[in-house]
């Protein structure tokens, strides 16, 4: 299982205009100005490619914070 720090870093890397330090585990990611349907798509691919975890759009919709997203990998890979 990947660490929270590794996951956070990968997630921060999806954003081009938002400074990494503005995105933390407690951040409500859908409130980030840069968040879009394309970022959601990138997030799903990130889960698949970097964390070997299949995630669907509904799970992204249901998550609020970055840590909620991390917990998806934790649940599926435990």
């Amino acid at each position, binding site marked *: 299982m990947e660490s929270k720090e590794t996951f956070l870093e990968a997630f921060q890397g999806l954003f081009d205009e938002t400074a990494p330090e503005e995105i933390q585990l407690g951040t409500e990611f859908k409130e980030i100005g840069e968040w879009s*349907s*394309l970022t959601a*798509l990138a997030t799903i*691919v990130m889960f698949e490619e970097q964390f070997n975890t299949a995630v669907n759009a509904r799970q992204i919709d249901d998550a609020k914070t970055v840590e909620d997203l991390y917990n998806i990998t934790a649940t599926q890979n435990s």
Partner: protein
Amino acid sequence: MTTSTLSGKKIFITGVSSGIGRVLARDLSQYSAELHLTARNEERLHETIRLCTQGTTTSYLADLSSTSDMQQLTDALPVLDGIILNAGVVEYLPVKMISEKKLRGVFSVNFDANVLLIQQLLKKKKIAGGASIVFISSVSAHMGVPGTALYAASKAALTAFAKVLASELAPRKIRVNTISPGIVKTTAIEDNNKLSTDAMTEAEKAYPLGYGTAEDITGQVAYLLSDQARWMTGSDIVMDGGFMLQ
């Protein structure tokens, strides 16, 4: 068009395990055609065959990305009057998330396999003079919808290939056309869980006539396969419920 239009014609369809391919097989069987069907999944291939209640049906289990499967398939097929190249994968991702594996994966199925299949059928003289070839492309090939780069590019390549093929085969009266559907409600789309139900519902608002169904495609394919379309080749038929009007 009467049901005798395609009676006895030898028609080959790829990707019949679900979606448009399955409905094509089911509906074209009603024209009493001699169907030759291929798919990768044996169980789902047989489910499709059970839906084909008229004419005759021969099945071929094959992975078109496998060279040996492709060779066995093209050896086994008879000389064909109609070919529908429908097999494909839907893959949505932003450009910056593209990997070589994803790139190869999409093009291998959506483009390479179709090109190599046609090449082998021609080489083995398995396409009858006067035959009709129909590629299922996509309206994505004409657009720039975010997240569709790989899929759209693979379909655009397919559409371009079909046009050149049409000109090369015209002397033998073999016709080649593409159908470019917009979003059609199929299991491939429904199973593509990268798009939420809410997002799909919202996106449908861009379709003046709503999303299509596989049945919307089959009538057009039957027409292109028939002699009634004898003057059509190199055409790309967009079927998108008005999506491109805006």
